[in-house]
């Protein structure tokens, strides 16, 4: 279709934001010191929130189960520190809403060393037992969506997974957490991938990494032994290369049909951090209690890649990084294209937090909006081949039902259209308005 496909493998459309990874891409991961209090929201994953099984005053060890899965599409939580349960109640989440959470006071006398857990004999597990173990480990997709990983491994009868795709694209600007992980822990990454590949019965592991991470590609290549069923694919640098359906299109040239899942084209996709978490659990018996977070952006004094216990308040991370500069206006959780603004710095790092980015007026001040001049840049940017200009116009006119005819529900809010628009129209927000309206009316039939 697109003649450029001959020169570089990629999905069609998309945009090319500046990479902006220089600040942190060469900084090794460092462990943040323990702080006094940790806050574990019960709903850190997509799906049902976990159910607390602890009482106030109870002592917990690092890695101990503190909340169990409430349903199949739900997962477990473990204490990130040794300490005492201080409060269970509603606390502000990063978006400002109150959510149920467990507050843990760290024991200042405990060593906070991980109890060497017991490796799990994964080779002999049946697929069902394996899925149960992944749920016990509390592992979710760590690229940002936080979808419980074990659910992805439950392949319905009659379907088969041929390829395990490890997503190391990391296409969001600024973020380097996956990049560092690939450089510093390639063996664990390959180990985790191998575990999943064998358990799912996939033929081959394919690792996709954007070409702007040559060190990561080199590190992985060095550790892939000849004869391993592992293929490393350097990817064209384009946003949103790391979106599940896009990376599948890029590598296998297959489109996941709208409303279906990667498994419908025989692929299972996992983020690199997720497979490292799987290796941690099966090789060392350590459940998911910490993650890598990139703290960066023009408003951060000392940008860094940090190994952060879950539940650490954002404020403490920022403090560790020298605080915010005076020019800071906004702090984002996630990347600059799809991340969400943080309303309160007391909110914690959760399983899906890939980055904390601080921005100054240069990024946050909106350009003056002009009328849509039908230039078509948004149409040529949308990787899902929607017509964002049309959707924005319909949303402005409050013709939400008409938006359905233009497949508004297929929009993944990747932000390419707003990025590309020369008239600075907040297209994604207008689309969100339409979606919200459609959803609420669906839930409350008139």
């Amino acid at each position, binding site marked *: 279709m697109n003649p450029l496909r001959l020169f570089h493998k990629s999905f069609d459309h998309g*945009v090319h*934001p500046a990479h902006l990874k220089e600040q942190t891409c060469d900084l090794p991961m460092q462990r943040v010191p323990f702080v006094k209090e940790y806050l574990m929201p019960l709903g850190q994953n997509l799906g049902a929130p976990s159910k607390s099984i602890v009482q106030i005053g109870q002592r917990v060890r690092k890695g101990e189960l503190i909340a169990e899965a409430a349903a199949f599409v739900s997962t477990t939580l473990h204490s990130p520190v040794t300490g005492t349960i201080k409060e269970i109640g509603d606390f502000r989440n990063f978006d400002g809403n109150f959510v149920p959470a467990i507050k843990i006071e760290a024991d200042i006398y405990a060593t906070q060393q991980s109890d060497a857990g017991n490796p799990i004999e994964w080779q002999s597990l049946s697929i069902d037992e394996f899925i149960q173990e992944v749920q016990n480990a509390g592992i979710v997709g760590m690229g940002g969506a936080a979808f419980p990983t074990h659910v992805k491994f439950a392949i319905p009868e009659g379907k088969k997974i041929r390829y395990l795709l490890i997503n190391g694209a990391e296409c969001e*600007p600024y973020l380097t957490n996956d990049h560092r992980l690939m450089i510093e822990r390639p063996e664990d990454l390959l180990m985790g991938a191998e575990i999943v590949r064998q358990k799912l019965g996939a033929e081959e592991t394919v690792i996709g990494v954007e070409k702007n991470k040559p060190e990561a590609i080199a590190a992985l290549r060095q550790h892939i032994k000849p004869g391993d069923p592992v293929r490393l694919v350097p990817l064209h640098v384009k946003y949103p290369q790391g979106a599940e*359906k896009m990376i599948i*299109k890029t590598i296998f*040239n*297959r*489109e*996941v*049909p*709208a*409303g*279906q899942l990667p498994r419908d084209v025989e692929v299972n996709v996992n983020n690199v951090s997720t497979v490292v978490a799987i290796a941690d659990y099966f090789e060392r018996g350590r459940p998911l209690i910490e993650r890598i977070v990139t703290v960066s952006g023009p408003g951060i004094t000392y940008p860094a890649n940090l190994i952060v216990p879950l539940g650490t308040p954002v*404020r403490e991370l920022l403090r560790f990084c020298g*605080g*915010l500069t005076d020019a*800071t*206006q*906004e*702090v*984002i959780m*996630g*990347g*600059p*294209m*799809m*991340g969400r*603004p943080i309303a*309160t*710095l007391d909110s914690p790092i959760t399983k899906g937090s890939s980055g904390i980015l601080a*921005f100054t007026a240069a*990024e*946050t001040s909106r350009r*003056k909006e*002009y*009328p*849509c*001049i*039908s*230039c*078509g*840049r948004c*149409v*040529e940017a949308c990787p*899902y*081949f*929607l*017509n964002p200009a*049309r959707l924005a116009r319909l949303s402005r006119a409050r013709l939400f039902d008409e938006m359905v005819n*233009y*497949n508004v529900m*297929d929009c993944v809010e990747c*932000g390419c259209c*707003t*990025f*590309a*628009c*020369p*008239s*600075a129209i907040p297209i994604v927000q207008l689309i969100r308005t339409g979606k919200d309206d459609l959803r609420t009316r669906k839930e409350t039939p008139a």
Partner: protein
Amino acid sequence: MNAKDPELLLEHAPLLQQGMSTPQAMRDVIYSLVPVTLAGIWFFGLSALLVLVVSILGAMLTEWVFSSAENKTESLWDASALVTGLLLGLTLPPGLPLWMAFLGGVVAIGFGKIIWGGLGNNLFNPALVGRAFLLATFPIAMTTWNPVSDVDGFFMVHATNLALPFMHVEPDAMTSATPLGLFKFEQEATPIINLFLGNTSGSLGETSGLLLLLGGLYLWWRRDLDWRIPASILLTVVVFSGILGLFDAERFPTPLFSLFSGGLLLGTIYMATDPVTSPITPKGAWIFGCGIGCLVVLIRVWGGLPEGVMYAILLMNAATPLINRYTQPTVFGRGKERS
């Protein structure tokens, strides 16, 4: 707690934006027109400059009068009225009475843009609306072409330029037919090199194919223009007139002549590609361009007028909403062929 806790904004992602803005795109159009404009003035003398200035004035004044109070200066800054006035001026004969040029500018903005609801809502290209109005109202003045002025004549202002409004105008003694007119009515072909450089008679800004192409290249390089539209128009014209030439090389112009004569390049590069009035979808752009190309050749060869670019573009402008509707891209994962 020594971490600063500023009043945090909650501006939504994406926080990054590419560099191009709509006013910048308009300014690019103006920059790209500088050589063409200078060439027009060089070839047609001071008269040309006056016509341009006056039609720009007409356009900008109308924009200023009709824009809302709080938006007055802003709407001039987005430069779209300037672009419209300039483009209109470039399609006018250099000897046109100045009051007509002014009126053209007023109509272009008033009827071409303001009554539709302002920038982004108009169906037809405003500059061409202005020109169509002038051609319909003042057919003689709009088809009286002055020859390229010689060096001495540079500062000479045509008598017709200064005609008073609504007075009868004696046509200038010195007139000459355009290359298209010569070909149509006298079967006389103008050398291609003249068409390429621009020293032939015609509208102010349409004569130099070379400079128009350079302007187009600049816009393409700046990504301000959908390359599909010029590509499809020019391709269609070449192929269509080439086929006609196979039947009767005497009667029909050669493809090269078709490309470089008349307002084809000016219209193709600057009016057909007006984003507002051309289709938004890539597939639509191809259809739009092919439609214009066919219409141009049809009107030129079989129509009563020597030139047809303006009508071709206006007709396809009218078809744009329909084209948009039927060329919606196939949404990802909803294609018929499940690869």
